[in-house]
């Protein structure tokens, strides 16, 4: 069995007395889609921030492709093949969609012409062809999410970290984006996604890790997680699982 | 050189001058704490206030301390108007635009004063400017003592305003959480303007306190404001306590340095201290995040 592309080992992030992430460990198998779920405030985005170099973990190791990447700045990680999208979209507002994506494709290409062409190809794959010459600030939320995705893909990553890329989309927009994510994984990109939209998690993820109050409390297949008592309680509160069972027994 | 007879008066003088520095710094830090902007026009506004106080004395025969009563509301209004009708609208909320607009204002005000009044240095003569008060074994000039006392009163008044009045609470709310304050019905543009007005009012008071012992010319304000900027980055942007403590501290240091070093060296020294603090601790000793 091949080594997982990403191995997060006992990573913690403390802010003074607050333990945003507490000895969290998970792995992302190469070429698979791994989901990271959990109630709000569980520490998911903080964990992503430590993996992508925006925050330095208080303790722990993050092993990517066999090497510990803790302490490397975001731009180094990008050059190593780790891409991310942001929970709150961060477009280059005054640039066009094409120019936005080109910043990413310039990572592996020096010539402007090459980078522009590659950007066009990525835009095609993501469905942004029609918007290429619009300013990024004029995009809808769905468009912005696609732009985040396109930019991240443009750097030709091996590992793609999606932070709630489906948030803020209506059901039909979600339905459009899910197969797109699947096709990215099909091309060999390892994906780790933070998601709240359970139908997407169920249909996309092969393995799910659950984070609650900074700690990983469960992991397994999506079906197993959905039935896991601890997970239900993390979302709905203590005793919720038992109440649900009792409710099911009565009605 | 180090005997108490020389040191103590130097320290006391430093505290007195430091109080006025603190007041200038207070205005700056208040504006930063609430509007989150660095007011590049602070120096020019102080110069304008000093000219106003000067002419109040020259043309209306008003003693500076009396003039303060007139000038403080006037400059509050000026500050309010500038923020509400010039800075706010012109900048459209963009950080970079705010920078440019306050810079533009600074250039306009300072050079308007230069154009109107030439570069001559002026001073006023007050009969009691050189009277001294005996504190312990030291003789401190009366204007300095008055200045210290007034600054304490102003600081207290501001504290009371912030703590107990509705406006003060609204200001604190906007400083902490603008969006929430807005959603609660607070008129943020009005609060911003009020705060800017308060900061400018501090300058008017400081100008009146400075006039008895200092000169006035179109670049006078900048010298003091540089010190104020240094105090604010030292004490922390947005920290009132930092401005006060920092002001007194810098006043004492300046006084002691004046004993041992020269004038120009002192100026460069302050700039260098300012740059060093910016580079290595922009959040200051008491301040919030940069």
């Amino acid at each position, binding site marked *: 069995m091949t080594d997982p592309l990403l191995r997060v080992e006992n990573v913690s992030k403390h802010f003074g007395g607050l333990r945003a992430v507490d000895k969290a460990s998970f792995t992302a198998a190469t070429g698979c889609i791994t989901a990271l779920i959990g109630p709000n405030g569980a520490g998911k985005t903080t964990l992503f921030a430590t993996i*992508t170099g925006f925050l330095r973990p208080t303790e722990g190791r993050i092993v990517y492709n066999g090497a510990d990447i803790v302490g490397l*700045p*975001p*731009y180094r990680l*990008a*050059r190593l093949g780790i891409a*991310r999208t*942001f929970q709150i979209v*961060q*477009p*280059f*507002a*005054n*640039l066009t969609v094409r120019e936005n994506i080109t*910043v*990413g494709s*310039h*990572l592996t*290409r020096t*010539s*402007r012409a090459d*980078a522009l062409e590659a950007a066009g190809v990525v835009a095609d794959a993501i469905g942004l062809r029609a918007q290429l010459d619009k300013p990024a*600030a004029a995009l809808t939320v769905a468009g912005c999410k696609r732009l985040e995705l396109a*930019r*991240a893909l*443009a*750097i030709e990553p091996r590992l793609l970290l999606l932070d709630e890329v489906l948030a803020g989309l209506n059901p039909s927009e979600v339905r459009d984006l899910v197969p797109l994510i699947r096709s990215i994984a099909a091309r060999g990109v390892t994906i780790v996604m933070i998601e709240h939209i359970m139908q997407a998690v169920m249909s996309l993820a092969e393995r799910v890790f659950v984070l609650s109050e900074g700690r990983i409390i469960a992991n397994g297949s999506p079906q197993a997680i959905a039935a896991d008592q601890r997970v239900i309680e993390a979302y709905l509160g203590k005793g919720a699982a038992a109440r649900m069972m009792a409710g099911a027994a009565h009605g | 050189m180090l005997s108490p007879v020389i040191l103590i008066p130097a320290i006391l003088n430093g505290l007195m001058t430091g109080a006025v520095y603190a007041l200038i710094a207070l205005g700056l830090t208040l504006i930063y704490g609430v509007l989150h*902007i*660095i007011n*590049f026009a602070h120096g020019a506004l102080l110069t304008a206030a000093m000219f106003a106080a000067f002419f109040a004395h020259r043309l209306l025969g008003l003693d500076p301390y009396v003039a303060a009563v007139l000038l403080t509301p006037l400059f509050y209004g000026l500050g309010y108007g500038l923020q509400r009708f*010039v800075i706010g609208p*012109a900048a459209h*909320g*963009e*950080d*970079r*635009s705010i*920078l*440019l*607009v306050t810079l*533009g*204002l600074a*250039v*306009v005000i*300072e*050079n308007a004063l*230069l*154009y109107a009044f030439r*570069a001559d240095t002026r001073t006023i003569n007050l009969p009691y400017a050189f009277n001294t008060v005996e504190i312990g074994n030291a003789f401190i000039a009366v204007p300095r003592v008055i200045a210290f006392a007034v600054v304490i009163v102003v600081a207290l008044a501001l504290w009371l305003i912030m703590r107990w009045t509705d406006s003060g609470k609204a200001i604190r709310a906007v400083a902490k959480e603008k969006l929430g304050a807005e959603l609660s019905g607070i008129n943020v543009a009005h609060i911003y303007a009020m705060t800017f007005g308060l900061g400018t009012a501090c300058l008017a008071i400081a100008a009146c306190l400075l006039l008895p012992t200092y000169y006035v010319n179109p670049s006078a304000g900048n010298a003091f404001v*540089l010190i104020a*900027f240094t105090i604010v980055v030292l004490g922390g942007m947005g920290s009132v306590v930092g401005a006060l403590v920092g002001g007194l501290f810098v006043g004492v240091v300046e006084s002691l340095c004046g004993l041992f070093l020269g004038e*120009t060296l002192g100026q*460069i020294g302050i*700039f260098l201290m300012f*740059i060093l603090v*910016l*580079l*290595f601790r*922009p959040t200051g000793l008491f301040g919030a995040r*940069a």
Partner: protein
Amino acid sequence: MKGLVPIAAAVALLAAVPLVTQSNVVLNFLVMTFLIALAGQGWNLLGGYGGQYSFGHAAFFGTGAYVTAIAQMHYGINAWVGFFIGVAAGALVGAVIGLLSFRSGLRGSYFALVTLAFAEVLRIIASVAPITGAGVGTLIKLDLRPEAFQFQSRVPFYWIALGLVAVSLIIVRIIEDSRFGAHLVAVRENEDAASALGVNPTMVKLAAMTVSAAITAAAGCFYAQYFLFIDASIAYGPWVSIEALLAPIVGGVGTVFGPLLGALVVRTLGEVTKLMTGDAPGLDLVIYGSVLVVVVAFAPRGIAGVITMLRQGFAARPIPERGHD
């Protein structure tokens, strides 16, 4: 590269001016305009394209001016060589200030503040240091030979100034179309997003600052050769910092021709003011400060922005700008 055609056209047009008129007034006016355009283009690279607003570009202008003057007067170095040494010195100062500032993570207002402070420190030092002639200033000895970078007539100066402007236009155009340029505007728009895409913000800003400083320093070096006299408030004074940022803002930040267009407008305003009200100190800067506020309020994209909007027709909505945190 197609972008060079407009530059060539503009330069050719301007180069023809001395063939049409020998008026010293016109040539003088245009030389000053070119100087401001040059200094402004330097600012534009760092501020317009890079988004880092410096309020102290005089630091580089003055360094160029003083270094070239001192090299000639104190060390007998040839004026042309001195020019390049001045540019290099300016670039070095830019690199140092940039390294210190960007390493410390200074952005926005704090960066503006620190550049302002650096320029002021240099001004004070220059006003007291013996090697700069302290308060009296520095004179470059009159030596009207081309080898000494001095000319009897204004015309060679004009063409050299124009040549420098042309070089700066080409440099910016090349950067605009390059990978570095893409990185630079990305950093301007959003540093975090840029770094997530493999851009090293600190290095990019540092590189931009160094080139920016070099270009502005060249303006300073030329000033020294043209006027043969500088002192601390001429070389490092706020007027330079203000005009260097005003020209690109009026003309259009982040565009190739912005600083040149803006310099024309700013200089024209300055001359008109002088004509109407005499040479009173301060009035020109009052006008400049007001123009700054007005342009920021009503035409933040400058003249270039207005032209673009007109081209897109009145029906086009203005591009909404996102606020920064």
